[in-house]
C-alpha cells in the first residue's frame, strides 16, 4: 500500500509537461517583468487616450494590484497563461478596442462592498 503510493508519487513527480511559452520559472518571471514594464509605460497614454478621471499614479497602483493578486503562483504554465491574458488586455487597451467603461471596470466604482460582520449581513438579509 505504502510502496504503491510512493511509486505513484515518484511517477507523478517525474512526469514532464509540455510548456506553454517558458521552460522554467525564471523565464516565466522574466515574461512577467516585461509585461509589467509594458503596462507601466502604457498607463499615462491610457489615461489621456480614454480621458479617464484617475491620476497616473492611481492607474499604476491598480496595475500593481492586479499583478500582486497572482503573486503566489509558482507553476510556469499558469504564469504563462496569465501573461498571455495580460498581453491581450494590453493590446486591447493600446489599440482602443475597449471603451472607457471597460477600463474603469477594474476600479469597481459602482459596486458596493460586501458586508463581512454579522450585523450588516443580518440587515441585508443574510446573503451568504
Amino acid at each position, binding site marked *: 500500500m505504502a510502496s504503491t503510493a510512493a511509486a505513484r508519487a515518484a511517477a507523478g513527480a517525474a512526469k514532464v509537461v509540455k510548456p506553454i511559452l517558458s521552460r522554467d520559472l525564471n523565464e516565466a518571471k522574466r515574461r512577467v517583468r516585461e509585461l509589467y*514594464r509594458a503596462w507601466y509605460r502604457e498607463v499615462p497614454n491610457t489615461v489621456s487616450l480614454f480621458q479617464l478621471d484617475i491620476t497616473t499614479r492611481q492607474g499604476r497602483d491598480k496595475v500593481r494590484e492586479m499583478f500582486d493578486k497572482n503573486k503566489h503562483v509558482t507553476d510556469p504554465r499558469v504564469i504563462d497563461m496569465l501573461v498571455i491574458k495580460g498581453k491581450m488586455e494590453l493590446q486591447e487597451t493600446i489599440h482602443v478596442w475597449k471603451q472607457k467603461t471597460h477600463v474603469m471596470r477594474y476600479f469597481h466604482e459602482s459596486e458596493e462592498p460586501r458586508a463581512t460582520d454579522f450585523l450588516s449581513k443580518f440587515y441585508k438579509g443574510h446573503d451568504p
Partner: protein
Amino acid sequence: MAARVLQQCVRSLGRPSLRLCPVNLALRAAVAPAVTVHRPFSFAADSRRTRWLGQSRISSVGLLCRQYGDLPPLTLETIKDRVLYVLKLYDKINPEKVTSHFMKDLGLDSLDQVEIIMAMEDEFGFEIPDAEAEKLMTPEEIVQYIADKKDVYE
C-alpha cells in the same frame, strides 16, 4: 631657435583659461601656418598644440561653446549623483538608507526593482534589457553598469 620661440608663444597662449572661442580660433589659425613652416620641429610644436588644446578644453568645460547640441560628458561622480537623486525621489525608499541592497535590506519587490530600473532608463535615456536588469540590485551595481555601457572610466 625659432621653434623654441614658437613653443614659448604657444605655452603663453595656453595659460589664460577663460577665452572666447573666436579668439581661440584666430590664435590657433595664427599659430598653425607659422608652425608648418619649420618641418623638423613640427612634432614638438604639434604636441605642444595638442596639450594646449587639452588644457583649454578641461579648464573651460563650463564654457564649451562647441557642444553641437550634445549632453555634457558623463563622469562616475555625476552618474552616482543622478542615480542617488532618482532613488531619493522614489517614494517606497527611505531617503537615508538609500545605498543598500534593494531586496534584502530595503525589502522591495521584484516589480519595485523593475520600476527603479525603468526610472534609470528614463533618466539616462537608453534601454536596459531585462536579462541584465534583473541582476542590478544595489545602486553601486547600477552605477557600474551605466559606466560600462556609456564607456565612462577613470
